[in-house]
C-alpha cells in the first residue's frame, strides 16, 4: 500500500483555512547534539507553510540565545545564523523562560534573538493558548 506524497510532504497544507496553532518548546542546548537544530527545523518547515507557530526556549534551550558564541571551537556549526531565519520565515512569536534565563545567569536584554521573557504563570497561559504543543 504505497501512498503518494508530494516531494515536500505538504499536499494538504495548502488547503487548510483555519490552521491550528503550534507551540514548539525547545529545551536543548545548541552544543548538546542535533536536538536544538531539529527543533528549529520544525519551526522553519512550519513557517514555510505559513502556519501559526510559536517557539518557546526553555531550560537548557535558552543557551541557544546566548550571544557571541564560538561553536567552531567545538568543531560545531553555528546555530545562531539559523535562528535568525525564524522571523524571515514568519515565525515571530518567540518566547523565553525568564526563570530558565535567571538559573543560568543570562540576561533577557542581551540575547541574540528578540524573544519575549515570560514568568511561570505566563508560560502556563502560553501553552494553553496554542492548539498543539511539541516539546523536544
Amino acid at each position, binding site marked *: 500500500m504505497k501512498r503518494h*506524497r508530494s516531494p515536500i510532504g505538504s499536499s*494538504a497544507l495548502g488547503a487548510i483555512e483555519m490552521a*491550528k496553532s503550534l507551540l514548539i518548546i525547545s*529545551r536543548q542546548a545548541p552544543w548538546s547534539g*542535533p536536538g536544538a537544530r*531539529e527543533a528549529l527545523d*520544525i519551526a522553519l518547515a*512550519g513557517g514555510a507553510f505559513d502556519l501559526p507557530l510559536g517557539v518557546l526556549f526553555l531550560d537548557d534551550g535558552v543557551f541557544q540565545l546566548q550571544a557571541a558564541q564560538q561553536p567552531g571551537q567545538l568543531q560545531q556549526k553555528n546555530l545562531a545564523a539559523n535562528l535568525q531565519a525564524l522571523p524571515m520565515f514568519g515565525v515571530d512569536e518567540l518566547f523565553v523562560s525568564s526563570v530558565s534565563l535567571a538559573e543560568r545567569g543570562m540576561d533577557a536584554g542581551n540575547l541574540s534573538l528578540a524573544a519575549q521573557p515570560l514568568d511561570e504563570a505566563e508560560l502556563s497561559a502560553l501553552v494553553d493558548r496554542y492548539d498543539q504543543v*511539541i516539546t523536544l
Partner: protein
Amino acid sequence: MKFAIAVFSPAHAPSSRRALLFAQAALAGGHEIVRLFFYQDGVHSASGNIVTPQDEQDVPAQWREFVTQHGLDAVVCIAAALRRGVLDEQEAQRYQRTAVNLPAPWELSGLGQLHEAAQVADRLVCFGGN
C-alpha cells in the same frame, strides 16, 4: 478523536514502548490515528536492524506489526533518519551505503508530514521529548 503521534526516542527507551501502548489503546478505544511520525532518535524505533535479546520486548518488531496490521500512515523523518543511518533501499543507493534498515511499512518523508498531521489531528501526542 483523531490522534497524531510523534515519537522522539529510540526503541530501547521506555517512551517508545509507551507510545506503542498508547497507539494500541487509542485504536482499541475506537479512536483514529491519522499518522505516526518518528523524529530525532525516534527514527531508530523504526530500524529493521535491531536485534533484541530473547527475553526482552522486541519493540521495533511490535511497531512494524502494529503499523502493518492496521494499515497506518507511518512516516520517518528523512533528514533525521539519514543523520542516524536509518536508510531505505532508495537512500542507501543514493548515498552508496551497504545497509538498508528501514523496511516497509515505514516511509521516509519530510517535516511537512508532521505539520500536516498536527493540522488534521484533534490531538498531537509526543513521546520521548526531552
